[in-house]
């Protein structure tokens, strides 16, 4: 009998433990007020695991925007805004299938009129067909892969309504990011690169773009390798890289897919003095802790302006500090801006409807029409494909364990 009890206990433990990262904290709670008083905003970001160090500050940006709107009497106090927070990280890493699941949950909830997210480009690839089909507007603070908005790849994602675009982003794309990083590397007189990427939508796209731009600027690519999911040992790969004597290693990918471990193991194979440049995927606190002392001297970009240096962001920074008692993340301001664009679009739709609950289509139309919207990261507007009209890039370096901004580049479109 005792054993039967143990077995039951075990089963219960298994049920309780099973994958807490996929389901999550929905702070919206179960509101008992009738549907119609509350308008929900879906938020899909990776907020657990190695991605949490970027995901949580980004989510905080969204929360701040929603809280401020409620406090300032959104829609004349007629409606309350509530976030629906879902996590797309599974086993500590962003996951396209989990992202798609979350978006389906948003779509199924009639009170959700728009969503912010996702953080990662491969997750966006699995979500865009769903939001396109449902006509649910989606604004990402940080997806940079080109093929999400431009070209045949993007058209293929808009499966149900090829002519309608429901996906927008407030950051720039990887052509620009790869180009800026290549220019920067050449300016540092780096001539030979060994490129490594994680074979994901974002990582490979960025690495390819970097390789093309670096070649055009007269740089030489000695090798371009792809690492695999959950890989932990990079010594063989780095020994190969070292044998070709590169000036620096370029990494296309995120910290959670190996960007930090790779840098750390460069020390183990005697490449501590070789340069290391990456994209915005490694611009997080997790990179600093994983790479340890070798993080110093690493350069990376952020596909957003450096909010801490902008006059337009001063008010936002103060409010963020006061609310969360921590520094902003690389994409906090972008998420805040994206959320405010969405909130303004909902507000406009409510006014146009004479105070009634607006439809998703109305909100989508208002977001698409956004022009010169004042935000901490500068005026926001979208082109027909959903790309931001005047994005900026920041180049940063790790110095003494701290991230320092080296350059801010504004991109003309």
């Amino acid at each position, binding site marked *: 009998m005792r054993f039967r009890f143990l077995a039951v206990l075990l089963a219960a433990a*298994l049920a309780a433990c*099973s994958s807490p990262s996929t389901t999550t904290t929905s702070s919206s709670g179960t509101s008992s007020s009738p549907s119609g008083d509350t308008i929900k905003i879906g938020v899909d970001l990776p907020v657990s695991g*190695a991605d949490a160090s970027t995901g949580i500050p980004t989510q905080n940006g969204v929360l701040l925007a929603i809280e401020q709107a409620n406090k300032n009497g959104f829609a004349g106090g007629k409606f309350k805004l509530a976030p629906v927070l879902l996590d797309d990280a599974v086993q500590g890493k962003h996951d396209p299938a989990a992202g798609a699941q979350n978006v389906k949950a948003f779509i199924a909830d009639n009170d959700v009129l728009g969503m912010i997210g996702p953080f990662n480009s491969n997750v966006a690839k699995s979500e865009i067909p769903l939001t396109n089909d449902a006509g649910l507007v989606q604004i990402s603070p940080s997806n940079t892969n080109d093929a999400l908005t431009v070209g045949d790849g993007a058209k293929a994602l808009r499966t149900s309504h090829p002519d309608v675009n429901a996906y927008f982003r407030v950051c720039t794309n990887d052509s620009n990011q790869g180009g800026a990083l290549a220019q920067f590397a050449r300016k540092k007189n780096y001539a030979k690169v060994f490129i490594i990427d994680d074979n994901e939508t974002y990582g490979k796209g960025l690495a390819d773009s970097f390789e093309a731009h670096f070649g055009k600027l007269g740089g030489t690519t000695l090798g371009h*390798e792809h*690492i695999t999911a959950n*890989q932990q*040992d990079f010594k063989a790969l780095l020994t*190969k890289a070292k044998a070709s004597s590169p000036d620096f290693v370029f990494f296309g990918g995120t910290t959670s897919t190996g960007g930090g471990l790779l840098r750390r193991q460069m020390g183990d194979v005697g490449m501590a003095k070789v340069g290391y440049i990456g994209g915005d995927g490694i611009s997080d606190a*997790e990179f600093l802790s994983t790479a340890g002392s070798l993080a110093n001297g690493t350069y990376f970009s952020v596909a957003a302006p450096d909010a801490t240096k902008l006059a337009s962001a001063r008010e936002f920074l103060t409010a963020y500090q006061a609310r969360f008692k921590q520094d902003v993340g690389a994409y906090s301001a972008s998420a805040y801006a994206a959320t405010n664009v969405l909130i303004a679009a909902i507000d406009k739709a409510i006014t146009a409807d004479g105070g009634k609950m607006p439809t998703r289509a109305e909100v989508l139309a208002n977001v698409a029409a956004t022009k010169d919207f004042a935000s901490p990261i500068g005026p926001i507007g979208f082109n027909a494909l959903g790309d931001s009209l005047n994005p900026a890039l920041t180049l940063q370096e790790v110095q003494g364990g701290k991230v320092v901004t080296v350059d801010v580049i504004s991109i003309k479109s």
Partner: protein
Amino acid sequence: MRRPRQRSLDVLLQQIINGLSLGGIYALIALGYTMVYGIIELINFAHGDVYTLGTFFSLAVLTLLGVSGEVHGPALLGIVALTIAVAMLLCGLTGVIIERLAYRRLRNAPRLAPLITAIGMSFILQNIMQYWRGPSPVPFPQVIPNPTFHIGPVDIAAKQLLVIALAIAMMIVLQLFIFNTKLGKAMRATAQDRDAAQLMGININTTIALTFLIGSALAGAAGFVSGVYYGSTWFFNGFAAGLKAFTAAVLGGIGNLAGAMLGGFLIGLIESLTTQFISDQWSNVVVFSVLVLVLIFRPSGLLGESLPNKV
């Protein structure tokens, strides 16, 4: 400047060292896999997670001792010995508990049943570790000074030597234990015929528990070594490593201790050489292609499925 041919030979030697040290970690995990399989013919899927647990236990001991960086002199030996001992003991006990909870009652059930509980145990351990240390990678202090020895053109780090030496030493100790002690004899008897062994007065439960104790303790040692070797770990680490180690055990001949070690080193070598001469992304493909080929021509692995003396 060296001549190009000389240089590519140096790189080859360096990759062999890389492969052997990576393979050493696989081998250490594979020993535990193969031992459990040899005795009760169960693929203990939780073994990879016990290995990760070993890294976390080691980390906890080091934190308790207040060690956060390199240690020198006699203190180093003491700290390393203590950390490995505690990690091995705790992992060994975890293994015994797992066997008691998840496998013992199912010993005579259809073979699918303990396989499923093994996968369940793996999830439980992963989630316990995730709860304990969070879902992000956790840095592991670099306890052991890591001088690099330059032997001719090749660089060998002290950590790499440690991994290779430990794997070989563990295999020899195990081999001696199984073939030269009374308990080892009991284990071999249990493997051969459980009922007959019981009739001869061998306590089956104790013997199997002992197998789990030793196998999991080895995973604990491997956990410490991998923490030192990679300088970080996270809760999900055991999944990929466990899979490779299992492959190593099958490649060498499951149930065969020397085979597990051979398989581990071989997989490490294949991975590093594929990375050097083909491409990193193909390393898994080549590893598993070799496995398929070996199994076609030698279905019981390279050294044969010589379960602790089932010949």
